[in-house]
């Protein structure tokens, strides 16, 4: 994908000869590419061959590519399992809500931050909101567990102080999604808004002045000037997020969920982890993973086509 991107960006590219001259001209750039390409080939492309065990039976200790053809047997098995469909539903719902909420907020946040006049305050706010992104997900979940504990957690202490009853947040299927989204926001809003801040800071001030002269209020300015400037960035981010829709934060869910919260917390990846890896059903797990990969790819491709047609700015 990286290679084809480079090819297409040069208008009128006609073949290997041009590649050769390009390589000579920009040797250092191509050398930079070597390590990432090796990384992608070794860790992303070669393991794809392993997907074959979704169709062949895998026996530990024997061939990596399985020992016998099973056809669609594993696919039939998981498509009939209601636990799988529960996981699928949860993945889509969690990603959907996450996208709906966590996607616009950094945009709004950067718009608001952009309006601040005091530079120092702005910088402080930016730094403070970026820092949580560097916390490991394990630390974040441990913090959540400590704060939300019904017997020792501060949130419940406050609830009880106001006369309410302590809620066992981490073990309640209803609260799972809410806690997940809130902690995602807390951790990533600052970081995700950086890219939008970068776009905004390079915005042309003349347009704003002209708009103010024409009598446009702040909100009208935002809608008609700022948003169109940010649109390409927003579109690309949106496509990437859509492609990840089935790939939602596995580690966080794994750390947060308990058997009681499976009905809302279990997502495809944790399902594969439990049944496929911990239960040592490798072929079954691979089949599910392959299913997820194919759907993600389709979504990504569709999203790209739509943005290309509608706004003329897709990922490829």
């Amino acid at each position, binding site marked *: 994908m990286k290679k084809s991107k480079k090819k297409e960006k040069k208008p009128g590219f006609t073949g290997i000869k041009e590649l050769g001259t390009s390589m000579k001209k920009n040797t250092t750039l191509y050398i930079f590419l070597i390590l990432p390409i090796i990384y992608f080939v070794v860790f992303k492309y070669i393991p794809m061959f392993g997907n074959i065990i979704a169709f062949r039976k895998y026996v530990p*200790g024997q061939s990596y590519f399985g020992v016998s053809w099973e056809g669609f047997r594993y696919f039939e098995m998981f498509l009939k399992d209601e*636990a799988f469909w529960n996981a699928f539903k949860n993945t889509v719902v969690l990603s959907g809500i996450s996208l709906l909420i966590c996607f616009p907020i950094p945009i709004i946040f950067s718009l608001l931050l952009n309006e601040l006049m005091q530079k120092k305050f702005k910088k402080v706010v930016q730094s403070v909101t970026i820092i949580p992104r560097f916390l490991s997900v394990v630390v974040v979940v441990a913090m959540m567990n400590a704060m939300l504990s019904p017997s020792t957690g501060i949130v419940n202490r406050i609830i009880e102080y106001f006369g309410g009853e302590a809620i*066992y947040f981490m073990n309640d299927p209803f609260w799972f999604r809410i806690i997940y989204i809130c902690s995602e926001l807390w951790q990533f809003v600052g970081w995700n808004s950086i890219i939008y801040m970068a776009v905004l800071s390079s915005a042309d001030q003349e347009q704003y002045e002209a708009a103010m002269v024409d009598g446009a209020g702040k909100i009208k300015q935002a809608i008609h000037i700022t948003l169109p400037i940010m649109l390409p960035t927003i579109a690309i981010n949106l496509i990437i997020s859509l492609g990840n829709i089935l790939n939602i934060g596995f580690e966080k869910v794994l750390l947060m969920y*308990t*058997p*009681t919260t*499976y009905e809302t917390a279990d997502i495809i990846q944790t399902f594969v982890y439990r049944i496929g890896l*911990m239960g040592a059903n490798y072929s079954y797990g691979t089949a599910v993973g392959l299913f997820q990969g194919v759907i993600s790819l389709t979504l990504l491709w569709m999203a790209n086509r739509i943005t290309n047609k509608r706004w003329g700015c897709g990922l490829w």
Partner: protein
Amino acid sequence: MKKKLISLLVVTAMVVGCMSGCGSENKKSDSANGAKEGSNEISMMIFEDAAAPFSEDWLSLKMIEENADVKLNIQSVPVSDQATKTQVVFNSGEIPDIVTKTFPKPKDALSGLLLPVSDYVDKLPNFQKYLKDNGLEKYMDRQRMADGKYYMLPIKAKTATIQDHQWLIRKDILEKNNLPMPTTLEELKDVALKLKELYPESTPISNRFYTNNIMAGIAGAYNTIAGWTLGDGMFYDEKQDNWVFAPTTDNWKQFVTYARELYASGALDPEFSTQDSSVYEQRIAKGEIFIVYDWATNCKLFNQEGKAFDENFNMVAMAPPEGLENEYALQWNGPWEQAWVLPATVAEQDNFEAILRMIDWLYSDEAMVAMTFGEEGTTYKVEDGKKKFLDDTINYQSDYGLYENNFCVRFDTEYYKATLPQEVVDIYDYCVENDCVPPVNPASPLTPEQMDETSAVSSTLVDYVSASLEGFIFGTMDVEKDWDSFVEKCENKGYKQLEEMYSEAWANR
């Protein structure tokens, strides 16, 4: 010039950083490759506990090397990685000569990956003597797999079945409030509720290691399995000599009913399924928890920490409460808790004689004392016919590698007399006399093909059962009203086929 120098330094640092990762990888794979070693060099993969990190200077290692005339190459992995690491090592095909703390999975054993130890027992006279003297041959036979062979060596093997996981209770609080020591599960619940009345801020019964831990203990009192002991859900009923799927039996329903009552009445800590280990210990010391299901030896630790809060703090092990008649609330256990497996390729290697020699020495009585107590005069002494460690403050496990789960092949039960409070030793003896500890299931009778068929089925079943267990306990599923739909769902997921397959395989053995 300066810029170039700095960028050169940065690049070198990055490259060196990458290379260092490569370097240590190579070292590890060398020591794990047994084929290249000399004829008395043995490679082992061990899984170290954080409490006793491995050290090359361990006395236990030196004793093995001297007495069996071998040289050990040890590769140590943190025990938290054990499940994934063993899978990786087995799948890679380059297995060290001995892998510790691993019970053979039928898939691996019957596919020819592991060594059928039973074929070589004639070369291990001390092992045979150990089994014969303690009446454990029948037990070893239960480890035989579908092909009639067994693939493991029992480690931490004792002369009788001891269960380290017991119920601990604050004896001083009971005495203070004139409450009797509970002997049955119903009495346990009553005592806990009375304690809750007296100490409203407390959560009388609690647990660490989540649902799987305490539920495995309580299930034992109903002659069934749950939590840690659930496995693939199949339970071997000794009286009827057949296998049943435990979660749909009547006993399980009774077990779940009790667990639900325990939770709903407030006797059981609402956070029992998610509690953090260190928070749990703090709360015990502060006197917010009175009854726990934990390692029996921890009562010493709790007493030490609790004394700071309450000078009368006295936590003791209590006799396991009875549930059904003659069934006690303990997890099953065998005379051994750990196992070694060896790769099948070891039989062709030059060092096979050395391996057998080492293993045989380790099953001798002399090795039993040496690996548990160390060297007389250096680490222990004999007083009035009883063995005692020389220094109570030294942690012999982490400093000398004694009574360690990776190397202590035979475990001297005199260790308990030497280190535990008398009450705990009494409980262990009580358990042995009254046969309180339920027996472990025999090895699965299924062939690898059958296992492959049932593997995904049993995984999804167990997954559903674990979620339902919590559902029943927390009340989102009602034990009376939802039981039938629970059984029906299990049926839809295929538990009856599982039972049929097991019955057939067991009958055909």
